[in-house]
């Protein structure tokens, strides 16, 4: 197992994960001593967690609310909107839900607030997957934020949806996340 604070992204790790998609590269059991107490405690308390960003349009916030993840024991953390806000720190395995920005310009697709969150290596160590929203009107840039985060953090792009998501998207995400975290926990317990 690799150190959870380093997402090395070497080809070996990539190959291992491709063979067993549900197994995260790092597990809460092997965190460094300083983080062990908090991380293990939160991992026991939650079935899983999601971290999301939503701008003033509230599209992603509505999608997350519609998923009713608290009923599944999945915690939700929101990345703050304003630069002056207290930065979010997450120390348990999570799936990132990110809207695509930039109006079709791929280089601007990941919201700056999300970049800031992921630039903290301690936050980045716990990402296990990404879900991205977008609009097919933006052509190749559709849900580009998801592909960028997936490539940069070496985690799977689990799902994409448009705007605030349809009831079908909500159902798939809710069921999918429950399965995804259950599989991850089983893998951690082994």
């Amino acid at each position, binding site marked *: 197992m690799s150190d959870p604070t380093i997402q090395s992204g070497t080809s070996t790790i990539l190959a291992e994960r491709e063979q067993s998609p549900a197994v995260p590269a790092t597990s809460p059991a092997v965190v460094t001593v300083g983080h062990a107490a908090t991380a293990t405690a939160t991992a026991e308390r939650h079935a899983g967690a999601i971290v999301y960003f939503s701008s003033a349009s*509230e599209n992603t916030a509505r999608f997350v609310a519609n998923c009713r993840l608290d009923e599944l024991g999945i915690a939700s953390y929101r990345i703050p909107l304003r630069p002056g806000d207290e930065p979010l720190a997450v120390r348990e395995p999570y799936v990132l839900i990110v809207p695509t920005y930039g109006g079709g310009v791929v280089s601007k697709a990941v919201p700056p607030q999300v970049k800031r969150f992921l*630039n903290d290596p301690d936050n980045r160590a716990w990402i296990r997957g990404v879900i991205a929203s977008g*609009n097919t*009107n933006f052509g190749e840039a559709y849900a580009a934020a998801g592909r960028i985060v997936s490539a940069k953090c070496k985690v799977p792009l689990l799902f994409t949806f448009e705007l605030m998501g349809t009831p079908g998207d909500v159902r798939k995400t809710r069921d999918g996340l429950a399965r995804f975290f259950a599989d991850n926990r089983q893998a951690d317990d082994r």
Partner: protein
Amino acid sequence: MAPISIPRKPLKLIDRVSAINWNKLEDDKDLEVWDRLTGNFWLPEKVPVSNDIPSWQAMSEEEHTLTMRVFTGLTLLDTIQGTVGAVSLIPDALTPHEEAVYTNIAFMESVHAKSYSSIFSTLCSSEQIDAAFAWSEENEYLQKKAQIVLDYYEGDSPLKRKVASTLLESFLFYSGFYLPMYFSSHAKLTNTADVIRLIIRDEAVHGYYIGYKYQKGLELVGGEKREELREYTYDLLNELYDNEVEYTESLYDGVGLTEDVEKFLRYNGNKALMNLGYPALFPAEICDVNPAIIASLSPNADENHDFFSGSGSSYVMGKAEETDDEDWDF
């Protein structure tokens, strides 16, 4: 019948003007959207539509007529949005920057309207062009949709105006947008499709922004009014949808594509509602748009990114994408 693309009542102007200060924003969305819109600026002359001449010449007369009617219908909507719709939103704006964004939207709609003329002049004879414009004046469903929307633009409810405008931007165009996406998926008129994709990208930002401003406006009214507007939105969508179905039949029955277009209408109707902050209306089973159309619209919107449905047995790793922020290289 008199041309409908002329407002029957004068639109009101804003009551008071102060010098706009872009260094003092009341709503960050205004600058964000202004930057997106100006960053996306384009002109039809930049797209080599003339490369479509061989493709056009190989198409049937029926396909020619259909294409020209569809594009004339889109021209009418863009004209309405450019000269009436976006302009009518200016007096309702909550911030001076919002007013400025509407002037950009109005101008781009005029660019869109002109781009159809640019396509026509490249591909068609003046007799064909005249016939298509004459058809647009006579098609009752096209006239009706223009009427419905214009009535709200001239009405006295700022929020209803935004609903009508968002439904135009995010729903009413799509019976027309379908055709170039369909042709492009059959390797026909691919450069023309590139022009339409640029329009489609702009309309997404317009619908998003006007829908967002609608939601900001909703925050300022009471619960009862909010409920009335919610009902009004669904009623108007249903009214426009019924008319769109008739319009679609009048265009596409001859080529057997009506059913396929209707799925695309419902899919976009849902997106229009979402832009206004409302849940989707049409269930997924009747919004299963032809995958070739979705792929023509967005090459990345495929099933590979639905890990949850089990269609991908391994991780779908993203391709390396270009980003520009230096702080993003971890």
